[in-house]
Each structure stands twice: as C-alpha cells, then as structure tokens.
C-alpha cells in the first residue's frame, strides 16, 4: 500500500505546485513508483510545471464520471518510467468532486503506487479539503511571512480535526513544514522570520528549506521541476527534503547568509 502525501498551505502562491512537482520527481528518482495528482479543479497547472501540458487527454473529473479508466487518464512522465501525473479538470462545476469518486481514485492509486502526492489548491474549499482528507502525511508549504504562517496554522487545525485519519480515530496525519522563498541574508538582518521562529509559532518541524532563487522561475518556465537542476541550490534543497521524507538525516543547507567580499560589504550590492 502506498503512502498519501498532501502538499498544502492555505495561502496561494507560496509554491505548492512547484513543491509537488519537485517532490514527485525526487521520489521517482529514488526509485519510488510515484503519482502526483492535481486537485485544483478549474485551474489546472501542475501539468505545466511538470512539462506534460500537451499530453493531457483525460483528467481527474473524467475518471470520476466514468468517461475513461484511471489508467487512461494517467500521464506517463517522459523522464521517469515510474512517475505519472493526473491532471485537474478545467470544469467550472464546483461540485465535480464527490467524496466517493475521490475515495475510489485515491484507493486505486494507493494500490498501484508507492507514493501518491496530492497537490492541493489554495484556500480551504472543496478541492483543498479532498486533497488533505485522505492524507497519511502533510507537507505544509509556508513562506516566512505573516499571512502564510497564519493560513498554515488554519490548515493544520483543519487537518487535525477533519481528515479521514481524525474521523476514524487513527494515528494523526504526520505533519511537516517546508519553508520556501527563504532568504538567510534577510533573516540575519532581522527582516524575515527564521526557521526556528516559524517552527515555534506553528509547533511543527521543518523538513526542508528552499532558498529564494531565480532558478525556480526558470524551472517552471521550461516545465522541468527545479529538483532536476543539480546546479541550483533550490534543486539540491528539494533533493534533501525528499531524503528526509524517506527517513534519512541530512543537515540543512543554504540557511546561512552568503559571506560577502570586502567591496560588497563596503559598497553594498
């Protein structure tokens, strides 16, 4: 039986889809049979970040409605044999997701794959609820910024009380934070909350810290998840996060300010 990991945040634009895509590739690279599912019904985007947007034929809602089989809707990744994507539907129907429909898909995926990553939409509406409902683990993506931290706390609270695990009285969903857009320089200057600050406020441990880096945008521009960029700090930070999710110990990298040269320190920049 596979493990279900939800990537969620509450707030939009913090890097959920970027994270889902990178974690999925990371797990596949480590030999895990992985599927990544876009729950953002109406606003499909994971396919673009994964670089398979032109190969979407069927989507999540097609499977629920019985227009096609689950197998037909799974898009095989071109880079990894053991990685598949299930695209979100672009329907405007808010009630396209049904509890039974989603449950059936999740159970089928769980039987077939080692890792099922659920890419949650922003907010706490239907799509976000279903993305987290079945989870065994949660990766809460958070920017070290007030509104993101507050929304993360809301999402953690909802998960603790409304998830399937909570309802059935099973062991709680395992929670992790993933800090994105982290700038060690700004933390040192006192302009940005630190890893320890965010951990203290939310009472959850950080499993990875992704530095603010231009490569993240270039990666989504080209449809190649940033984890596959082995020159980029952000990519390496995601690789570390995957290793930690697999139970390995890795020291945090890229969390110290870059040492500046004499001229930079004197004249700025």
């Amino acid at each position, binding site marked *: 039986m596979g493990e279900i990991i939800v990537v969620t945040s509450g707030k939009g634009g913090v890097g959920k889809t970027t994270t889902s895509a990178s974690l999925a590739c990371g797990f596949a690279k480590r030999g895990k049979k992985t599927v990544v599912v876009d729950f953002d019904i109406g606003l499909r985007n994971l396919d673009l970040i994964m670089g398979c947007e032109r190969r979407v034929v069927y989507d999540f809602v097609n499977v629920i409605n019985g227009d096609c089989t689950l197998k037909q809707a799974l898009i095989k990744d071109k880079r990894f044999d053991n990685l598949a994507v299930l695209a979100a539907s672009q329907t405007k129907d808010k009630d396209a997701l049904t509890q039974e429909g989603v449950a059936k898909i999740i159970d089928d995926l769980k039987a077939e794959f080692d890792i099922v990553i659920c890419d949650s939409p922003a907010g706490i509406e239907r799509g976000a609820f279903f993305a987290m409902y079945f989870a065994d683990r949660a990766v809460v993506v958070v920017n*070290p*910024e*007030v509104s993101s*931290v*507050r929304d993360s*706390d*809301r999402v953690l*609270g909802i998960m603790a*009380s409304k998830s399937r695990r909570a309802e059935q009285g099973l062991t709680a969903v395992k929670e992790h934070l993933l800090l994105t857009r982290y700038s060690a320089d700004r*933390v040192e200057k*006192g*302009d*940005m*909350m*630190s890893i320890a*600050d965010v951990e*203290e*406020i*939310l009472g959850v441990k950080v499993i990875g810290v992704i530095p603010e880096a231009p490569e993240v945008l270039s990666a989504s521009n080209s449809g190649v998840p940033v984890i596959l960029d082995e020159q980029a700090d952000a990519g390496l930070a995601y690789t570390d996060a995957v290793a930690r999710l697999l139970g390995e110990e890795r020291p945090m990298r890229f969390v110290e300010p870059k040492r500046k040269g004499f001229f*930079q*320190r*004197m*004249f*700025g*920049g």
Partner: protein
Amino acid sequence: MSIFDLFRPRPKNTAKLAKERLLIIVAQERGAHSAPDFLPLLKRELLEVIRKYVNVDPDAVQVNVRSDGDQELLELSVTLPDKA
C-alpha cells in the same frame, strides 16, 4: 550593509514583531476554531431560556469550552442583573 547605509535610518527588527503578532493571533484563533460547531446555537438557545425567567443582557451569558488535562469542560456563566 555598506558605508552608505550609515546615513540611512535602520529599519527596526520587523521579523521579531511579526513573530510576536503571530504568536498572539494564532493562539487566539486556535482557541476559537477548536470550539465545537454547536456552541453559538447552544448559547443562543440558553439565552432564550434564561430570558423567560430573568431579563438579562445578551452579553450576560458566556459559554466556553476549555480543556483541563484529558477532560473538556463546558463552562456556562450567567451574570444576573443587579437588584435595583
């Protein structure tokens, strides 16, 4: 920081401020959201019942849930009007 920065006013440590604000609001919201969904309705109905007998202010009825160890306590406090 460069030598030019010496002539500019330094911003305060805003990260610290953010953390302090968040600690307060998060604690407050956790309390509010962990309360059972029926609480507002229970409060309204209790108020109606009490008002049949005593004319109290809407604010005079306080219903709270708090946890004490493994137990959850439902606290009800009613402030009766002064005998004038």
